């Protein structure tokens, strides 16, 4: 199942032991630079770098990575088309007739669509880099240091654990239903899903009550405390990151007026 997949990879990849704070800072700030850049150049550089780091340094299985990238790429293509038609100002690139209407796509829209697409790629690859190399269990420490309110962190930590317990239960029940030919058509599917969800809900509720009992047995008094903390990353690495960011921002500034279509046009 997918949930377990990301979690398993995060716990077993080759960059697992790199300081999690460093990974968080690196990917988040890079992500911000990506989102704020005005041309497709920097987002593409970031995408290439992040894909490289994730696939070839962390050794994340390529097949799964492609699956994760599939949906955003699909969305990206739709975005380009959508933007082309929404921003139908300026010189039209081409026009099509649809139900008697003439809809035209604009150059400006395509450029904007491509920009959003590239930012999306950069953003997704940065996020994937973080989530595929850093286990959630370590992100909790980072969240704690970011002063995320304790209640929220407590709930998140318990949720993390029970997501996997409940998923297991859900899949087992689903298999039991499939064995008895549930999900055969739309009506049996709804009947099965309804039973699945309600059965799971009831068990979830029971589980919550039992959990309070077992926690009370260990002197639970209302709040969870996290033991230990994560070291700060070495200054050298932070410095290297900073240099990297400065380079990115510079490239971003230099290439801010770059337009792909114009570039192609001028080429021919």
């Amino acid at each position: 199942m997918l949930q377990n997949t990301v979690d398993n990879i995060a716990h077993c990849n080759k960059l697992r032991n790199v300081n999690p704070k460093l990974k968080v800072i690196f990917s988040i700030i890079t992500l911000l630079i990506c989102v704020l850049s005005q041309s497709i150049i920097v987002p593409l550089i970031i995408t290439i770098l992040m894909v490289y780091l994730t696939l070839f340094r962390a050794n994340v299985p390529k097949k799964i990575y492609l699956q994760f990238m599939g949906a955003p790429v699909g969305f990206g293509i739709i975005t380009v088309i959508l933007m082309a038609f929404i921003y139908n100002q300026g010189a039209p690139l081409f026009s099509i007739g649809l139900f008697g209407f003439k809809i035209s796509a604009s150059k400006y829209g395509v450029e904007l669509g491509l920009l959003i697409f590239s930012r999306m790629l950069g953003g997704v690859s940065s996020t994937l880099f973080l989530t595929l190399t850093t286990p959630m269990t370590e992100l909790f420490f980072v969240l704690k240091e970011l002063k995320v309110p304790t209640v929220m962190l407590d709930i998140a930590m318990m949720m993390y654990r029970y997501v996997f317990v409940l998923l297991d239960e859900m899949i087992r029940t689903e298999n039991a239903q499939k064995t008895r030919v549930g999900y055969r058509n739309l009506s049996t599917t709804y009947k099965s899903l309804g039973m699945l969800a309600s059965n799971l809900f009831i068990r979830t509720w029971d589980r919550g009550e039992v959990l309070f009992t077992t926690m009370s047995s260990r002197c639970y008094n209302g709040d969870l405390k996290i033991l230990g903390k994560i070291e700060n990353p070495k200054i050298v690495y932070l410095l290297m990151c900073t240099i990297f960011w400065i380079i990115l921002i510079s490239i971003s500034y230099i290439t801010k007026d770059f337009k792909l279509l114009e570039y192609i046009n001028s080429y021919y």
Partner: protein
Amino acid sequence: MWCGIWYLISGVFVAHGIIRLNKIFKENPESKPLIAVAGAFMFVLSSLKLPSVTGSCSHPCGNGLGAVLFGPSVTAVLATIVLLFQATLLAHGGLTTLGANIFSMGIMGPIAGWLVFKSLKGKMNSTWVVMLAAIFADWVTYITTAVQLTIAYPGADPMNTLSIFLGIFAVTQIPLAIAEGLLTALLWDKIKEL
């Protein structure tokens, strides 16, 4: 940038939810594990594949059910964590759009569901009420998304753009919202018996 603004607005609502949770937990410490597993349930529910008559599939948000059970402000907190987990455990949805998603799925949706629930409660069979609440919670979530997208990318003619986005999100989501309503109703039917 709009993504920052959505973060801010969502932050205020979530903070309110946290204050409420703090109060709840002070009064009943046993509700903490309960709410945590309920949150896990919400996440797991969202991984179900819900087919609809049109042949398409969607993932239920569970935000309507959350709103009915815990009220909108607690649901906002749970939805925030669910969305964070979707980003980190499923690689669904990015971190930059998290603020906007919390606003649509964690705040507007639950508020809509909760309002429906409050205003119809007692006036008809509770299963119907819950079903409508879930349908509206889901539907409003997507209407909000359409509005958010229009704000971010108004295009040459904002009204035209809005209608395009509403066409994509609100109209196509109707059968899926009904699907979620059906599932939630089936679920509620069983819970009621307890």
